[in-house]
């Protein structure tokens, strides 16, 4: 009975979202105030019903109601209660519901905080958000209903995939979705501006914190996913260029470009059309990512055949959203163009270079991710695009961005002083070379480690140079407004990330070894003594737990306990044991027993072990978290909350937009 109520709530939410899409937009078109005023109550109503549906599904998991097919597939009696919450979003149907719920939370926030926006614009924004919710609710109800019954109900459910039974899962999808879905606000702003045919800088300013927050969440979600893969998959890698990872990385790249383009539009009025286009792309890629990952299209285009309805719906919805918004863009973008002109040597140009690199990087990732589908559709054969493709192109494309990065904050808007670039360049390059020499003395030999040290120092010293400049030039108290602090924070994050990524890659010592108890493996500067394997029991698993004593020059450091867990249905899951550190992680994961065992229970047999010494690996995630913090800090700036009476950039009329004479200062 209760699950049927959940379904009913979803249907009601669908109806409300349809109204939320149509009424406010018609109202804005006809300038009909009562119709526009329906947007908010409809958004609230939709949120309430989706919330009820989500609550009912959660209840079904907590109460172990296996008559609900989705619960039966993704839970069982032995699943500890704390994993029954994340199990709600552990598979396709539930994660779709979570997606809609998060969309409704964002919509609610826009409805509540958007009171200062012009009424028509606000109504259009909520209408567009209503359309997105409508699409997802329809998708959920018609092709992936989480409340579908399984009659007769099984005595016990299957299981939540053991890979997902990790604290990482609790965090990862909701945070990632907060990011994905957050771009819907920037998207709704872009579409609303195109519908109205005008774009005021004040509106872009208002939408900036939303983009920054969404991007911050996406950064955090990707960091959580990377950390989870590192600790859970037992491979010790932090990024595999896997299609699922790429799906979250593409919106992140475009989102990073959008954050910067919006800053230009806000401060200078320029790059308006580009900002709108990026907002459309960022959200389209989020949609693509969500669908690709959850529908299983990525392993093969033929997954469509498994459930043709799902595939067709996905394609249709993507076509409507992407095609529709691009068509609208083509028709209306010229009405929103404008802004102050800028010289070739200016902050705008540098930001544009970064934007270009980020979007091209996103495009190459998209190409590599979708290429196997294209190859299959054209019947060329089963193609797989290897990680080196992504790695090579990404490094190449990020080089100009990293080179330009320290100079953008140091340059003035409109027209920068190339002489000041030269001075700064000498200092930055000097410091980088110095760091390289220090790195050499400390033992970083070879091209890659030195590249890591110098590149990271290049970014960090450039950012520090700007911080010092502000300290000297700006009056106390106004030196680092939150927006600027956020920028500094995120740029420091880039530097820390570069150090982590390159140093981990080049300095890691990774060895797969076969050890009998008592035997020692020397990996890097460390000795790993294997002390055998014993059995241990968890709430819903049985594990073989190894004991590995780590020491350096005879000095004991830590005892690690890697596990190989067996879950009720016989699924095996490796749990790596990690000794974390600021400068290095020591990582051991258990492979298989090899060869004949000698003792009772086989604990004296020989085992395969994966032993890693991974320097600076934490810096990768620290960098990501600093970027996240940067996004959040910038969004909290007071500047975004105060609405000025007279926006300084007046509505541009469709005229030749860049004639300097027409620009008002």
């Amino acid at each position, binding site marked *: 009975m209760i699950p049927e109520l959940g379904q009913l709530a979803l249907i009601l939410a669908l109806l409300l979202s349809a109204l939320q899409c149509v009424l406010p937009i018609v109202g804005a078109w006809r300038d009909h105030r009562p119709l526009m005023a329906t947007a908010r109550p409809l958004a609230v109503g939709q949120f309430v019903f989706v919330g009820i549906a989500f609550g009912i599904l959660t209840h079904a998991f907590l109460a172990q109601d296996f008559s609900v097919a989705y619960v039966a597939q993704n839970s069982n009696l032995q699943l500890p209660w704390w994993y029954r919450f994340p199990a709600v979003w552990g598979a396709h149907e539930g994660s779709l519901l979570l997606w809609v719920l998060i969309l409704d939370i964002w919509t609610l926030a826009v409805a509540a905080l958007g009171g200062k926006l012009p009424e028509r614009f606000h109504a259009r924004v909520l209408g567009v958000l209503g359309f997105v919710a409508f699409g997802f609710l329809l998708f959920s109800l018609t092709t992936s209903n989480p409340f579908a019954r399984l009659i007769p109900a099984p005595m016990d459910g299957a299981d939540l995939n053991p890979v997902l039974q990790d604290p990482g899962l609790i965090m990862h999808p909701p945070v990632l979705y907060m990011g994905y879905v957050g771009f819907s606000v920037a998207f709704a702003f872009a579409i609303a501006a195109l519908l109205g045919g005008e774009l005021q800088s004040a509106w872009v300013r208002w939408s900036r914190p939303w983009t920054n927050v969404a991007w911050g969440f996406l950064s955090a979600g990707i960091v959580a996913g990377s950390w989870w893969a590192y600790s859970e998959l037992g491979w010790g890698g932090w990024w595999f260029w896997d299609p699922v990872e790429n799906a979250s990385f593409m919106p992140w790249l475009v989102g990073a470009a959008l954050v910067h383009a919006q800053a230009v539009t806000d401060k200078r009025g320029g790059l308006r059309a580009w900002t709108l286009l990026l907002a459309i792309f960022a959200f389209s890629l989020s949609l693509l990512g969500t669908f690709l990952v959850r529908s299983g299209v990525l392993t093969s285009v033929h997954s469509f055949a498994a459930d043709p309805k799902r595939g067709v719906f996905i394609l249709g919805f993507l076509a409507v959203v992407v095609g529709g918004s691009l068509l609208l863009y083509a028709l209306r973008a010229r009405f929103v163009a404008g802004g102050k002109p800028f010289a070739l040597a200016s902050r705008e140009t540098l930001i544009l270079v970064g934007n270009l690199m980020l979007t091209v990087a996103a495009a190459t990732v998209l190409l590599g991710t979708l290429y196997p589908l294209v190859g299959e559709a054209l019947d060329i054969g089963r193609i797989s695009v290897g990680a080196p493709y992504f790695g090579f192109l990404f490094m190449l494309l990020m080089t100009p961005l990293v080179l330009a990065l320290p100079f953008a904050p140091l340059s003035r808007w409109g027209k920068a002083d190339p002489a000041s670039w030269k001075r700064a360049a000498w200092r930055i390059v000097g410091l980088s070379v110095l760091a390289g020499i220090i790195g050499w003395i400390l033992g970083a030999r070879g091209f890659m480690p030195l590249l890591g040290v110098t590149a990271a120092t290049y970014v960090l010293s450039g950012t520090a140079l700007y911080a010092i400049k502000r300290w000297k030039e700006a009056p106390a108290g106004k030196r680092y407004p939150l927006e600027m602090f956020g920028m500094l924070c995120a740029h420091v994050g880039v530097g820390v990330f570069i150090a982590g990524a390159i140093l981990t890659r080049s300095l890691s010592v990774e060895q797969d070894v076969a050890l009998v108890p008592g035997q020692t493996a020397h990996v890097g500067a460390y000795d790993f003594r294997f002390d055998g394997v014993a059995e241990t029991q968890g709430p819903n698993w049985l594990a073989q737990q190894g004991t590995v004593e780590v020491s350096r020059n005879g000095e004991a450091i830590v005892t690690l306990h890697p596990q190989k867990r067996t879950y009720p249905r016989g699924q095996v899951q*490796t749990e790596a044991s990690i000794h974390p550190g600021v400068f290095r992680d020591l990582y051991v994961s258990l492979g298989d027993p090899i060869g004949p065992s000698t003792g009772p229970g086989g604990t004296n047999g020989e085992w395969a072990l994966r032993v890693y010494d991974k320097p600076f690996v934490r810096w990768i995630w620290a960098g990501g978290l600093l970027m996240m913090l940067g996004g959040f800090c910038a969004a909290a700036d007071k500047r975004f909350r105060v609405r000025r009476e007279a926006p300084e950039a007046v509505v541009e009329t469709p005229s030749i937009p860049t004639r300097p004479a027409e620009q008002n200062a």
Partner: protein
Amino acid sequence: MNPVRKRRLIAAALILASVAAATALTVFALQQNMTYLYSPSEVEAGKSPISTPFRLGGVVREGSIRRVSGTLQTDFTVTDRFHDLRVQYTGILPDLFREGQSVIATGHMSGGHFTATEVLAKHDETYMPKEVADAIAKAKAAHREAGSSEQGAGSRGKTDGVPDLSPPTQKKSGPGQAPGPARSSLPPASSPLPAPPQK
């Protein structure tokens, strides 16, 4: 030329140049890093590359896993139920690697066997990657075309393309217990050939 136009021209030229460069590099990188998937039957028929890497898809034949004591070398047979190919791998195998499981191995031919540098088994143990299923289906179709009938009996087996997983009881019977069927030196009576899944 007025400054605005000049600036635009420079911008357009820069964008065009970088797009061209990016396209060229992308095509290059794609060509360098693309690998195709073949089934053992296709390898047998000589369709796979001889020296360059490719991916081999199929099912780990029951009773074919051998480990070389004291090293991390594992030998096993990948089959599409019509032809077999011996695979050699040194390293730690993924959690879901076991007999009857579908796998994708990346590597190259060396002599009569396939030397794998990477072995992937999917995270969901009931799931057969569509690519492997298709490879098996293709092998079956090719086999049928060849007009041989003596193996037709195989289709009397399970219709599900995913062969049975090693029974969970094997794991529950205690760690490292006397090697189960996976490490037995005698291959079991050849299992019935399952028909490929779906269509």
